[in-house]
């Protein structure tokens, strides 16, 4: 009984829903504030993302007449559940070093869940704009998923075949040539997963009128916003765990861990603010051809380095 209660506490309150949602809303405020500062503006107040979500919860829920009602309403909940599990698992590993073999594979699956839910929900909305957005989102997922998995393969090879996040987080894989290449590619994949510029063609407010999210209003839209905010916590945290040596065993692990997280967040924001939106064909070519070749080279380097004990390769 107490174990079940403990599990519920983990999922709902501490590193799970409440904590990650608050942190995610704060992180999305940081994104908006830094973007504003880059454009020489003042930017929104700290509680702005919170106001947005509360406001959306209080509005009238509209479902399009031709929509597949059940799927349309259920999709955001599925997406939220996926990112909730992911963030709980990652925080648990980061804070208590408890992990199970193969959890990196589980994490990779859980990371796709919000994108799949978004594809399902928007294709159930019977809107032509959302349909264009859906097709772009599908192509984008196919594009970055390959690169992301290959980047993780590099890390797994470098750590000698470890499939356990706590074991992978023991060493900072990014401090080597192949690890650095894999880290940079994974950073761009996370950029695409978060739907940030230059990979925001599925939402594309100026051409598709927010594309995949177009038909969502009120509470379901609030759930999507929360999902995106929580992804903003979970995905950089995953990169910290896999590439940057996790929270580590330094005297102040939490300070180190948060520092690494902020570093990745700032990199994401700077990429977001200094690039124009790519076309979908450019994005696929970028991920498959350029990132694919770079990662193939990184895998070869990592294998050589692992076989001959050269750590910097």
């Amino acid at each position, binding site marked *: 009984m107490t174990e079940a209660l403990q599990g519920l506490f983990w999922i709902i309150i501490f590193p799970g829903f409440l904590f990650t949602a608050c942190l995610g809303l704060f992180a999305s405020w940081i994104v*908006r504030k830094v973007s*504003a500062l880059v*454009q*020489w*503006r*003042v*930017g*929104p*107040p700290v*509680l*702005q993302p919170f*106001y*947005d979500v*509360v*406001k959306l919860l*209080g*509005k*009238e*829920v*509209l479902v399009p007449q031709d929509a597949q009602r059940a799927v349309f309403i259920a999709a955001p909940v599925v997406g939220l559940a996926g990112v909730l599990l992911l963030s709980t698992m990652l925080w648990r590993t980061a804070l208590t070093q408890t992990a199970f073999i193969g959890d990196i594979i589980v994490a990779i699956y859980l990371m796709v869940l919000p994108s799949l839910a978004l594809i399902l929900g928007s294709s159930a909305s019977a809107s032509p*704009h959302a349909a264009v957005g859906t097709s772009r989102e599908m192509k984008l997922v196919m594009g970055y998923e390959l690169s992301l998995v290959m980047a993780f393969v590099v890390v797994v090879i470098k750590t000698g075949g470890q499939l356990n996040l706590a074991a992978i987080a023991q060493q900072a894989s990014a401090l080597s040539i192949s690890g650095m290449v894999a880290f940079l590619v994974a950073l761009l994949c996370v950029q695409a997963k978060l739907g940030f510029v230059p990979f925001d063609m599925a939402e594309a*407010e*100026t051409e*598709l*009128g*927010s594309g995949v*999210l*177009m*038909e*969502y*209003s*009120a509470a379901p*839209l609030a759930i999507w916003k929360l999902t995106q905010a929580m992804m903003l916590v979970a995905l950089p945290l995953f990169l910290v765990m896999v590439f940057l040596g996790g929270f580590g065993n330094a005297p102040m692990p939490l300070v180190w861990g948060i520092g690494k997280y902020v570093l990745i967040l700032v990199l994401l924001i700077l990429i977001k603010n200094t690039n124009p939106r790519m076309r979908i064909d450019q994005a696929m070519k970028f991920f498959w051809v350029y990132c694919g070749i770079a990662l193939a080279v990184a895998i070869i380097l990592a294998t050589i380095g692992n076989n001959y004990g050269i750590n910097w390769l």
Partner: protein
Amino acid sequence: MSWKIWSLKKSPWVFHVNTGACNNCDIEIVDLLTPKFDVERFGIKLVGSPRHADALLVTGGVTAQAAPRLREVYRQTPKPCVVFCIGACACDKGIFTTGYHMVGPVDKIIKEIDPNAIIAYVPGCPPKPEAMISGIVKALSAL
């Protein structure tokens, strides 16, 4: 004041509807969203879909073709929402009063489908961005 209205005042997302304006008011609205005025300070954000919107910025005196579209956009906006008539044409058809193709003004079209709609007026040809901010603040504090 209920929490719904309180949070609506804190983050009014706007959707821009052109119902046959001469483009002048539209340019002023775009000016309003530039870094100089920085309305994101107040949580105001331009959104791409009426389903995300809390306020409709309507410009133009509503032509015969635009009227059914305006009604549809208003129905697609989740309530509670506010309609802003931006410019002389949207408020009272302006210089197009005698035009054969004009069925407006905006408030008449909106009130046909929702007599209780909240409608605010920002006159001017075109109104300055400062006037629009002032109008939005007055309308929201009257809610």
